[in-house]
């Protein structure tokens, strides 16, 4: 490794070193103020990724430093900074160790930005493991909470199995092609190649692992329990950053596939359709906001899968736009849940929210706006995102998937409107929940303006995405 390569990897190094520093200083001066320090470090990493021009296009044949990778470093750093700000008060209330929490989130951001920059299967594996390992810990972070421990254990077992599948799949692909580096790793796996069966078996195993990590339909069973048990700000980062980073890494992975993609087409079709259907049907009867969001995230992953399946720069642009719109709306929804949470409980049953629109009008309206954006109601960003994906599916020749997607979007109105009805149209018998603090209001306002502005004026982001896509 040369100095130029190190310099090109600066944002990730800032994150990792910053996390280690916070961890060490926190041992001598334990304080929850370190979370603010973490916000500064994450913003610093985002700045360095956004402003610096890397000297080399690729670091050690592992990670790209192209504009695509740097865009996602900025995005995950911002999301991480926002969820750290959200957690400040939460950590105080629940007596979480501040410096460790902050360091772990920074490590997670580092892992996510490594993952979305991966140009090699080893880089992909390490990036994925780096933040999955952090989430095993963060999900069970409230030690007194038995539901959190259960969620942590579930995620650990499921995640470990998925990691095993991923490692085995990568090793089979390596055995078939003799390379970890992305375009070459899939060379020789097409029709005429002698090692094709091995490569396909490897891909089957890798798809299982990916399905687990982003909770696609047959592998989504961990999602509701983990969402429910994890602390709300952690769930916010898990739902946005961790799934988003996997999808961000899948775009170059599938672009490198070449003719092998035709073999995977049917499996991907099935995964997308199953996620849309299973998520929708499971979300319908939910009376718990976190579980509903968990099942609805399965549906959203189905939409993203459509973008991946269609392929091509337009569909990939629609996918990334969808990813960003989903990330901000979901983070804001979990942000509202965080700002309502108290020492003893986190309100998540619909019964807890009855008539809350009159007690806490601002945050309730914001929650409603997030849910409407996720449902795809026009002035908000979710509409354009869904529209882009469905249009890409129609253009790419997948009318069946487009029909399923439209049906899922229509049905989703029911389960997204249910909590809004509870919030605003029922008798006000909810007891007062916690008042929010400044940091939380700041994050929520930022997310809301993102949802609204991108919905009204999406052109700059779309141009940016066109520019960064390879």
């Amino acid at each position, binding site marked *: 490794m040369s100095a130029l390569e190190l310099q090109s990897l600066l944002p990730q190094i800032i994150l990792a070193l910053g996390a280690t520093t916070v961890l060490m200083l926190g041992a001598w001066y*334990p304080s929850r103020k370190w979370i603010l320090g973490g916000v500064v470090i994450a913003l610093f990493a985002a700045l360095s990724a956004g402003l610096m021009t890397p000297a080399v296009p690729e670091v*050690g044949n592992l990670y790209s430093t192209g504009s695509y990778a740097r865009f996602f470093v900025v995005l995950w750093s911002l999301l991480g900074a926002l969820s750290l700000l959200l957690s400040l008060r939460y950590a105080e209330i629940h007596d979480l160790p501040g410096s460790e929490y902050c360091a772990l989130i920074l490590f997670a951001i580092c892992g996510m930005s490594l993952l979305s920059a991966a140009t090699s299967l080893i880089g992909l594996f390490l990036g994925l493991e780096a933040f999955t390992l952090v989430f095993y810990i963060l999900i069970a972070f409230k030690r007194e909470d038995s539901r959190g421990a259960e969620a942590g254990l579930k995620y650990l077992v499921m995640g470990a199995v998925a990691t095993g599948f991923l490692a085995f799949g990568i090793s089979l692909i390596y055995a078939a092609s003799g390379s970890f580096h992305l375009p070459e790793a899939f060379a020789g796996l097409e029709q005429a190649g002698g090692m094709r069966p*091995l490569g396909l078996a490897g891909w089957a195993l890798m798809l299982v692992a990916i399905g687990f990590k982003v909770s696609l339909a047959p592998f989504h069973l961990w999602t509701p329990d983990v969402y429910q048990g994890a602390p709300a700000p952690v769930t916010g980062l898990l739902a946005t950053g961790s799934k988003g980073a996997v999808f961000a890494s899948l775009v170059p992975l599938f672009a490198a596939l070449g003719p092998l993609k035709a073999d995977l087409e049917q499996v991907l079709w099935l995964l997308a359709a199953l996620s849309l259907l299973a998520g929708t049907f499971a979300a319908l009867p939910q009376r718990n906001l976190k579980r509903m969001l968990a099942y609805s995230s399965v549906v959203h992953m189905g939409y993203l899968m459509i973008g991946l399946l269609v392929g091509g720069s337009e569909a990939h642009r629609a996918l990334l736009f969808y990813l960003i719109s989903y990330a901000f709306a979901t983070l804001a929804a979990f942000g509202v849940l965080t700002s309502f949470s108290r020492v003893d409980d986190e309100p998540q049953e619909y019964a807890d929210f009855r008539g809350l629109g009159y007690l806490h009008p601002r945050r309730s309206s914001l929650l409603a706006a997030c849910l409407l954006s996720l449902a795809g109601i026009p002035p908000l960003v979710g509409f354009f995102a869904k529209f882009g994906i469905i249009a890409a599916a129609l253009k790419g020749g997948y009318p069946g998937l487009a029909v399923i997607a439209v049906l899922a979007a229509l049905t989703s109105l029911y389960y997204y409107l249910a909590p809004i009805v509870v919030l605003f149209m029922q008798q006000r018998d909810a007891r007062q929940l916690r008042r929010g603090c400044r940091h939380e209001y700041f994050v929520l306002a930022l997310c809301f303006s993102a949802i609204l502005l991108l919905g009204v004026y999406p052109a700059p982001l779309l141009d940016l995405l066109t520019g960064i896509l390879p």
Partner: protein
Amino acid sequence: MLSILFYLFATVAIFSAFYVTKARNPVNSALCLVTTFICFAVLYITLDAPFMAAIQIIVYAGAIIVLIIFVIMLLNLGTAVKKRYTHALAWGAALSVIMLFITNTFIRRGVPTGKLGDVTTQMIHSYGHTELIGMALFTEFLLPFEIASILLLVAIVGAIILSKRQV
């Protein structure tokens, strides 16, 4: 001679792996796992990878199995924790048979035409296996090595946070 050795140890590995799931006493399961690991180590040696064999013995058969046995002892599980037969076992068996079949067809249909790597048997004999691994680990794969160290740091922090009563 070598292929007889291979089949011998492969059979022992498969049977002991089967008894890991079959044994009713968790300690027996753990011991069967040790046997499987040792068989793997022998297979590594026949593949000219003595360093991997040593790591396999030290880390897996040594450290991890000790950890597993400690956990079994601390949890103080009795012998009769497992039922004799469950339907889950039947499903698992059916799935394994299908997987075996699929793997078989895959292997029979595949033609190993993949290119050979730089490292040959002669190179291993002249340089030494450990030296080659060390060279690769600290030059070509330095960055993955460092990222793996971050992983370990995170794991240590997590173990302390989750197990300590008062941080």
